[in-house]
């Protein structure tokens, strides 16, 4: 293993997560609970797909095998995708959508903040721009967790029901594999333990003000998106997202 391989792997993880989360937000188009939410969901999705493009472009340059960011997004199968399991989960009701978004944002922000100090200038630049966007995402999703958690009886019950649906996937947010640890030691990526601690603090504080219980830490199980072992949801999501480039391989769009 060399740093280059680790770095490509890491860029795919960042880019794929942002892309898949963005794709899930696209599925809300026209179905949101309020017009303001239509706007906000598309706004957040737009930020994330934009970030995905930046990460995947860099990954494609490092790969240097003739593929570009679009090839990486639209022509990789699920076993080659590296997104967090959390973001590929179905949207469910608004409680599930908001909770997924919040848990992701609470992880994403400390990751990007750390990356903005990366010894890799390209990464630091992309991350510095993304930090501004994700600061907004986290504020928004946090406010909604509070509103729904500490809103009506029904919204509280729905949040309680949403937690076990997605909580088990948070194990990926608080752990690191060898590849990530090597990048951290090289000063390219932030310390995973610090990210995990920041995530834990944000979630605990916000759940408390939302009158929601914080479950015990999720534990490791078979699935592992870092090795391309996804839930069954990703394949269907990709079938929809990749249909055109797959059906018309010679096309220029």
């Amino acid at each position, binding site marked *: 293993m060399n740093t280059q391989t680790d770095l490509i792997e890491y860029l795919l993880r960042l880019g794929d997560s942002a892309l898949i989360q963005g794709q899930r937000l696209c599925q809300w188009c026209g179905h949101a609970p309020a017009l303001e939410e239509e706007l906000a969901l598309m*706004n957040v999705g737009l930020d994330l797909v934009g970030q995905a493009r930046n990460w995947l472009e860099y990954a494609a340059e490092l790969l240097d095998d003739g593929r570009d960011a679009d090839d990486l997004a639209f022509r990789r199968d699920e076993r080659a995708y590296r997104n967090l399991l959390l973001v590929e989960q179905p949207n469910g009701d608004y409680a599930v959508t908001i909770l997924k978004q919040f848990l992701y944002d609470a992880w994403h922000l400390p990751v990007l903040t750390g990356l903005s100090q990366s010894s890799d200038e390209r990464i630091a630049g992309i991350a510095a721009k993304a930090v501004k966007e994700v600061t907004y995402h986290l504020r928004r999703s946090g406010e909604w967790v509070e509103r729904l958690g500490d809103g009506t009886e029904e*919204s509280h019950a729905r949040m309680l029901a949403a937690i076990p649906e997605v909580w088990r996937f948070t194990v990926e947010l608080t752990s690191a594999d060898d590849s990530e640890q090597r990048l951290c030691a090289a000063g390219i990526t932030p310390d995973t333990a610090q990210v995990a601690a920041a995530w834990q603090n944000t979630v605990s504080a916000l759940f408390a003000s939302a009158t929601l219980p914080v479950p015990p830490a999720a534990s490791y199980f078979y699935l592992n998106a870092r090795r391309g072992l996804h839930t069954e949801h990703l394949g269907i999501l990709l079938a929809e997202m990749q249909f055109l480039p797959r059906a018309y391989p010679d096309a220029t769009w």
Partner: protein
Amino acid sequence: MYAQLVETGVKRIKDLSEMSEQERHFQEKIDAEIKIEAKNWMPDAYRQTLIRQISQHAHSEIVGMLPEGNWVTRAPTLKRKLQLMAKIQDEAGHGLYLYSAMETLGADRDEEIAKLHSGKAKYSSIFNYPTLNWADMGAVGWLVDGAAIVNQVVLQRTSYGPYSRAMVRICKEESFHQRQGYEILLTMMRHGTQAQKDMVQDAINRLWWPSLMMFGPSDEHSPNSAQSMAWKIKRQSNDELRQRFIDQTIPQLELLGCTCPDPDLKWNAERGHYDFGEIQWNEFYEVLKGNGPCNQEHVATRRKAIEDGAWVREAAVAHARKKHNKNAA
């Protein structure tokens, strides 16, 4: 987007001598091109006509998100996906501007939206046509937004101030998306495969006539236009705007290398305009009545979104009240 058939409820236009003093004063302001503002006196029929028109316009923005939402999850490149997301986001924003402008007239947003969901309020007929291939995203941007812009550019001079100012802001964003739409088609025609070129022509064949219908009934069958023109809510007739759209669009069609699905389309040197074939008015009225290809689905989707989201909005209200009480204590 646009509102295309708005009842004024007025049978006959009064001349100045028949008007009350208030009415005369109002009409003189209109004639002098002085904008009417929210707190000014206005005839009730003017107020109601504007509420109908602006709400129809706002509903069109919102329902108009659905045909594009249909393809946003399937956009073929990251760039196209980003463009489409930005466009849909703008449309939601346009809806918000317009509902705000409408509320300056004393109407209530939720009540007007409920009329949309019950089928009482209309929205632009164009959004009842399905988007069946990716080229539709280009054609909607180019033709549909193009037609909307021709309408809306004129509405920047509409007599009601809040509506006019909303149009100024909306037109800026809309023109950008229109150029993007055209560029989608141009890319497919110039650099695409035969299958892609076929998609473009197919999209134009399906969307050409519905786009022309966006300008509303022909002038002779547009009984509400005269009053709307006298009030300067409308500034130009449906047929004038439709002709302008055709004249400016045909050269763009030719540049694409596509054909127009109208065998009667022909340049008329004498008039200095294109002549064109008869619009299927039967189809237009059927779509407007609710019998178009997607009317049922789209209204049902919007109604379901609002119904399913009720608990979310209730939670937001309840939470805001709790916070307010806590701060007050």
